[in-house]
């Protein structure tokens, strides 16, 4: 019993760290993007203020049960992903609940939040929500192909589907990282990472100028607060996933923070440089070079 309580406590602590790091990362990234565009940008503590404001909203509107549950699904998906993700290698305190399932569980659990959110937005009744979801799903299907191919390549390379074991295999210096030992599969995975983080050029799904009129306006107050909370956790967790897959995992929190920031920064960097794809363009894009890389990665292990 003591074990479980301790476990829960450590996990909760980890969650808090990840959440706060996620929010800080958001403001840093916003700042960078603004500076590239010649603007000043937000204050570094703006996300916390936003969150407090959102949770503090006095009155709220609801379109129905599913609408209400949408954000719950969403954050359950994000936190769940966090729970099944081993954070720090070799430290059982920070391995969360990774013993419940392997990499496949992580891959499929992502959809839990996506589906719930999509349904919640759907009940909101705003036509833009449906458009956003349809675009998101469309893009996601093809993002997933190079991702799957890369994952299979890694699973075969390390002969395991356990993320912990994959990280273990990468210990002992940069030369053992997947990005070095299996550059092609890594390239495929990194391409799909761009799609997963949905920065430009793959940000039509969020389409900052149009789609936010849909879900983010329908979801206000604490709904939006929950969604923002989730976004912060989610971004870091997904970066952790790629860190574990490609960059040797992390042995302590400092390493984790640096690595996740750099990983995330890749997408930001590309996003700042490139304009936005239309949805059919991005669908076709992922069926081009990333797919070929993925197939190449598979052929190499066959």
């Amino acid at each position, binding site marked *: 019993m003591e074990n479980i309580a301790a476990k829960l406590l450590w996990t909760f602590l980890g969650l808090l760290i990840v959440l706060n790091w996620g929010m800080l990362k958001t403001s840093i990234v916003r700042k960078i993007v603004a500076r590239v565009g010649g603007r000043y940008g937000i204050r570094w503590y703006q996300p916390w203020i936003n969150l407090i404001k959102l*949770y503090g*909203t006095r*009155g*709220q*509107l*609801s*379109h*129905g*049960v*599913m609408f*209400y549950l949408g954000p719950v699904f969403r954050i*359950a998906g994000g936190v*769940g992903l966090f*729970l*099944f993700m081993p954070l720090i290698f070799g430290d059982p305190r920070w391995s969360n*609940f990774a013993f*419940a*399932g*392997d*990499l*496949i*569980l992580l891959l*499929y*659990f992502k*959809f*839990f939040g996506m*589906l719930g959110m*999509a*349904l919640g937005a*759907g*009940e909101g*009744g*705003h036509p833009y929500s*449906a*458009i956003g*979801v*349809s675009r998101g*799903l*469309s893009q*996601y*299907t093809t993002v*997933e*192909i190079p991702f*799957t191919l890369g994952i*299979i*390549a890694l*699973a*075969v390379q390390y002969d*395991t*589907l*356990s993320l912990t074991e994959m990280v273990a295999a990468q210990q002992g210096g940069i030369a053992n990282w997947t990005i070095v030992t299996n550059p092609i599969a890594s390239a495929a995975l990194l391409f799909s990472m761009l799609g997963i983080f949905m920065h430009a050029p793959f940000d039509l799904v969020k389409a900052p100028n149009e789609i936010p009129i849909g879900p983010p306006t329908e979801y206000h107050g*604490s*709904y939006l607060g929950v969604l923002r909370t989730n976004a912060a956790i989610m971004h870091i967790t997904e970066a952790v996933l790629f860190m574990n897959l490609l960059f040797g995992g992390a042995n302590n929190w400092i390493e984790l923070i640096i690595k996740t920031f750099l990983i995330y920064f890749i997408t930001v960097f590309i996003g700042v440089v490139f304009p936005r794809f*239309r949805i*059919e*363009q991005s*669908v076709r894009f992922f069926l081009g070079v990333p797919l070929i890389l*993925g*197939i190449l990665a*598979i052929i190499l292990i066959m």
Partner: protein
Amino acid sequence: MVTPIYIIAIALGIAFSLGFFSKGSKGIASSLFYLALTALTAIAGQWLIAFLTGDQSTVEVFTSGFKPPFSISLQMGFEEAVLLSMINIAGLLGAVYLFDQFKKYGAHLMITYLLLIMGLDVIVMTRDLFNLFVFLEIASIAMAGMALITNEGKSVQAGFKYLTATAIISAFFLIGIIFAYNFGDSLYINELLMSEGILKAGMVVSFLIIMPLILELKPFPANGWGLDMYQATHPAVGALLSGASVTASAYVLYKLAPLGGEIGYQVIAILGLITFLGSNLAGLKQSHTRRMLGYSSIAQTGLVMIVIGLQPMLGEMTLWIAFSILITNFLAKSGLFWLAGIINKDELKSWGILRKHPILLFLFVMFVIALSGLPPFPAFFGKWELIMALANSGNAWWIGLILLGSLIEAVYLFRWVGYGIKDKSFDFSINCSTYKTIPIYIMGAGLIAFVGYYLNHYFGDVVWYFIPLAFAALMFILDFLPAKLKNIIAIIGMGGYAYYMYDHFLGVDNLRFFFALIFIVGGILTLIPGFTKSGKRLGFYPAALLMFSGLGMLISATDLLQFFIAWEIMTIGSYLLIIRGKNSIKHAFSYMLFSLGGAFTMLAGFAFAQSGNPGIGLEVLSNMNYLPGLAAALIAIGFMTKTASLGLHIWLPGAHAEAESDVSPMVSAILLKAGVFGIILLFIGIGAEAATNHPLTYTLGWLGALTALIGNLGAAFQEDAKRLLAWSSIGQLGYILFAFSIMTHLGWLAGLTYTANHAAFKAILFLGIGGVVFRTKTHNMYEMGGLIKKMPLTFITVLFAIITLAGIPPLSGFAGKWLFYNAVIMKEWYLQGTIVFFAGIIAFLYSFRILYAVFLGHLKDKHRKIKEAPIWYLIPQFLLMGFIMLFSMQPELILRPFGDMISAYFPTDALTWDNGTALTSLGYWNGFRVGVIIFILFGILFGWLFLTSRKVKKIKSFNIVYAGEAPERPETTHMAHNLFAGYNKALGFLVAPGITNIWKWIDESTHDLGDFIRRIYTGNAQTYLVHIVAYTVIVFMLINFSI
């Protein structure tokens, strides 16, 4: 025993005396006439009974005490007794049917009719060649005379053509007789057959004897004169031609065929095959009922010719096979021609009138099914034996061509059945006089009796096997009861069947028990919504139980024959179920064609598989000798038509979507699994070791993957909710095919998991959407929307089903995905696997679409007062949801038995269990922990939102942020139509109807070919004479050439 001479004496005597009756004494004349026919039938029947019961031996009768050739000899053996009984029964019943015509025409017609029947009788019995000629002439003169009953231009023309054609054929025959006498020095057939002289004379003589007999059977294409008779004369004449006349002529050919020696047999078989194929092809485009029946009759005759020609190979089985085909054609064709007379309209579509006469409709459908050679009717057994014998003697091509011909025949026959069951465009009524219906009933009863006889003959020792079939038959009889009562009876019956399965298979053969669960328990669950129907729901329960009994029989089948019969019965039942839908006529038709095509390839595969094996038990699948690769591929294709694999899938969306609300789950969640069951049996036969690099399983793996991709992609672009689900079934079955093709322990585990999951969630989805359709009366998703508020319970079940479908943890769908990844990586099928995973992600598109477009968004104005789906729809959904929850939370409970089942075939323990955690060499997963974590997490986070959100106010659906405007029309605000437009732009080309177009092209070009072929029937009597002469000359040349 009354000697058969009396047949001639009575017929001739009465026929002559009828001439003396003036118009005043019609009553006596007609009594005498019917008495005479009855007497003929009685004589024939008495001999038949004597042969059947005692040890009566063949009798030969010589007229006036002389030996041949100074007298005529008649032989009465078992075959003759059977055929005479058939002819005379046809004669008697036909006369009853023609009652009004005899009243109208009086003695003249009666004389003609009696002479016709007598002529046919003697043709069968006579052993004298010249006598045969005489009676052939008498029969054809009388037949031509019968053409005058319908005294109109067309009928007279037909009679004239018939007369000239048979006259010229008889002339040839006469020449043949002269030569036969000259060289063989006898006219006594028994002597001629052993005569050395004929052999020495070379083939010309036997050619001149046999060729006219072949021509009498109206071989394609020298048969325009016969077709016209079928088309233009009174339907009763068509019945006689097809039933009695063909029977007699075929027997003559059988009698005299030995004259031709080996080459003669070959020629007969080849000409028969050409007739069978050509006539069916030419019949394809036919829209005139009786002419179409004519094509079919001639095709059947061709089949009989094949059997006669293959006699050297078939040996003792020849008569049995020929009889099976003849008796079916005899009973069914007579019945159909008589029905045509009652309907008295030329167009096929006019048969829709039978909707108003259920008993006649039942007989009609039964006759056609029998004619198509489907079990359990006699013709099926004949074909089965024929195909098996052909395979045993290594004649693969013959099998292919015969089955092709059968399929073509089924095309036009089942198109016709479709009209009969569904077409509503008739605008007339029919008059069913008792004297016209009674003969049809008798033929129907006869057919059923023969079904009993054949089943007893083949399965006398396993009668229990057909108990479910008997139950389905009982439902036919009980069809007058109200639907609710029948539903209770059906469920009770199915319950009994489920208990039987439990008793017989649990622990003995768990794999079979598992499928029995899906078939029977699934069947019970999908029957429950039937309680919403009021009235009688005519025809539903017999069809449904036919299907379920077929499914059940698949499980308990122990040999190929039983399995195939079960398969076909299931197909017939499901066809009758599917065609009940409002717009199903076309889709049910295409379903039937694909099913039959599949069944025929399977039949060929079975035939190859059993060849060289001592028996036909299912174990032959693991010991194929003759063309093993082809056999396995054919069997697999057969099963894949049912699982709707890519290329064979085009029938499914229409058939499943247009079926009735409670039929869709039956056919989609349950019926498709029959194909899966078959594939499993086949793969078990191939065996784990042989399958490591088996080209078939490898190909099927790719095919399964592509099917999954195309099926799911197709589903994403549907606007029709049921079509979406139907396409999704195609995709899901693609996964299943893929999983089993992996042929490893894990692969099969994934396959079984998918099978169980699909059965559960697809039933929920079709029932849920069925309930929605039941309320909204539309299939189009963009016409729905916002229904979550009106049908929350349905939404919950559909949501759970979709989460399972998508494979999202914590529900059981994830078990399938997880096993899949492990299996794929271990099998090293990375590329195929990736396609399957891609397909899995595409499934999200339609998963979201169906939930969103139907239940979320804006409620349509006309749906504001809609109610929750009926409770009878909800009950099975929640039961199935219970199963999914159990599977999700305690996967070990279900996966462990699966693993034990599979261990019998794939002994490696690829999956181990450690305290609830599933372990493979690659990964691990604990369903219970994941479930608990997610549910607790969900609860906590829900609490978090609940705490932080205050004063939540419910608002109306249009209260959204919409550029300052307030939208008011759900139609314009519910963004549901063409939801994945961008995706369609990018990848829509993948589901462009390419395969459909290929099939369409095949369909059209076959029809065009048929249409082209039938152009030789110009209608000119002279052309037909040219055909006969040319046919004779060409066949002669070809024989000479090939010798």
